[in-house]
């Protein structure tokens, strides 16, 4: 956990990719879930932020 947090502060690819992946996954679940409308409303912006973050952090150092 400490390694993960220090990786985040040190702008390392691994931990940031995990963060971006989680955001994308949450966005897709929000888009397709059948429970609450507000989650569907905010799903696109969540997925977009995750995807852009994923593209940016994939250029970070290992």
């Amino acid at each position, binding site marked *: 956990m400490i390694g993960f947090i220090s990786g985040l502060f040190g702008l390392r690819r691994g931990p940031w990719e995990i963060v971006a992946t989680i955001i994308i996954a949450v*966005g897709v679940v929000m*888009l*397709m879930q059948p429970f609450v409308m507000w989650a569907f409303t*905010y*799903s*696109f912006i969540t997925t977009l932020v995750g995807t852009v973050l994923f593209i940016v952090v994939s250029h970070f150092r290992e």
Partner: protein
Amino acid sequence: MSNGSAKLHSPKAGKTVKGLSDKAIAWLFVGPTVFLLLAINIFPLLWTVYLSFTNYKANRPNREIKYIGFRNYERILNDADIWLNMQATAHFLIWTIVLQVLIGFTLAWLINKKFRGNDLWTTIIVLPMMLSPAVVGNFWTFFYQPQIGLFNYVVSFFTGVDPSSFEMLGSVSLAPWAIVIVDTWMWTPFVMLICLAGLRSIPDYIYEAAEIDRASKWRQFWTITVPMVLPFLMLAVLFRGIENFKMFDLVVQLTGGGPGSTTELASINLKREAFEKWRTGYSSAFAIILFVTVFGLASIYVKALNKVKNR
């Protein structure tokens, strides 16, 4: 030798090509492909992004195009019907992938055993994949007929239910499963073929070493077969996932999105908005939402695939 070819082989032509740097020659070869990629993929994508912020209607090309900001996105993401479409898409996507992976892997595992008629069975199993979705949709519509359909009679034979008492394509609760069954029937062979390639790539000596270590068949399956087939399986899931996310032809042929909108997948609604209601700006925004979703999912999936391959 003709005049043209004489020109090609003239010392002058050779000299011109010789004068080009390696980089220039590389661009000469890659250039047409890059141009086509830009013209066919990148430009339409950027144009769609632009249109998604406008009120453009393709059936009224002379009307003034107004910039309306994020209003199209706002409308889509607050539309309960689109929310239902996304749920129908999720149901279709999840169940087709689960069933295709389970059945496809099992079939590949069975076909990989050496038995008589192995090749014949492989050919028979692969047949549905070779048919056109329009043909498959058409004859499954007949299969699902409550009075004359084979499907209802098979179900009736095994369960004792009256064949005319249920209608697969007309019932709100059964129609989503009807399209899942047809897609699974058609595309399981594809998953099977990819799994079969994975199974056949496992060298025999690994199993022999496991036998010497007295590993049980069950242990061999979970520690050798599954990990070594996993990259292939993940590739199959990626292909089927992307393909089913934009599934259109088969479902239109079977149900046309009905009854009501229970089987109206996102792509069917997108086509209606774009080419029946002619709301081009609105449908462009919807297309961008779907694109970002598939792109995001594919990115993390490819990353996971590379990780599994490197392991």
